[in-house]
């Protein structure tokens, strides 16, 4: 069941990409469908990650919420970098801290690590199981729990609903 779900999801994504690039001509649709089918069959092992996406309405509703949060944080983080780079004293206080995530799914952890990299002052250096090592440009706390609260929590609560 999980395999069929990830296969179909992977195929839909590939097919949507094809349509977006090639247009909705009938021949293009047929060719795109066949190629999406072939590629997602060849790479079926790699696509198994996609099966971790939950498809209930609650999770689907959270995806736009998460995207909005992510875009807001991305803009904030760029402004933050701009401020630090432009100020003459170069206000940085860097350090590598360790945080823990509650997320169990691989895909959820990947998305979390990537989101952390693109948010203000933090960048994922290494992941080991449920621990993430984060380079923090302005280290405020060194304790695992406190750092987890201030870096991971705002994303985790949404990702937990979407991926588990």
């Amino acid at each position: 069941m999980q395999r069929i779900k990830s296969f179909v999801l992977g195929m839909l994504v590939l097919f949507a990409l094809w349509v977006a690039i090639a247009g909705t001509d009938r021949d293009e649709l047929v060719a795109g469908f066949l190629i999406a089918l072939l590629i997602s069959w060849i790479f079926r092992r790699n696509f198994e990650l996609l099966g971790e996406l939950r498809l209930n309405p609650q999770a689907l509703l959270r995806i736009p919420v998460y995207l909005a949060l992510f875009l807001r944080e991305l803009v904030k983080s760029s402004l933050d970098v701009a401020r630090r780079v432009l100020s003459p004293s170069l206000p940085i206080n860097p350090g590598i801290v360790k945080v823990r995530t509650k997320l169990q799914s691989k895909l959820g952890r990947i998305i979390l690590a990537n989101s952390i990299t693109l948010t203000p002052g933090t960048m994922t250096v290494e992941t080991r199981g449920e621990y993430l090592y984060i380079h923090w440009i302005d280290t405020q706390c060194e304790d695992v729990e406190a750092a987890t609260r201030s870096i991971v929590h705002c994303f985790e609560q949404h990702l937990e609903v979407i991926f588990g």
Partner: protein
Amino acid sequence: MIAFIGSLICLAGSVFLLLGALGLLRMPDVYNRMQAGTKATTLGSLLTLLGIGIAQPAWLLKLLILVIFILLTNPISSNVLVRAAHFKGVKLTEKTVRDNLKDDQEKGGDGD
């Protein structure tokens, strides 16, 4: 008018790209440089693509695909570079307050 708004957004994107480049020059070590590089260039390229999309609405869908690829691949490439730098033993700047990853590596060998 639309072309003008598009150009303004492109300009904003270029400003962020410039700030990213400035960050590469000013930051003291690899890790901080990657921070400046990744974040400012991600938003910079997004805004530039968005600006082009507004000026040329016919391209919007294809530009959106570019945006998705940039959002997915940019953080991964920076993560891989930083991880490699840390394992190779590139020093953190003297301002650094703590390095939990190094502590854990010394404690438990290869970790886990």
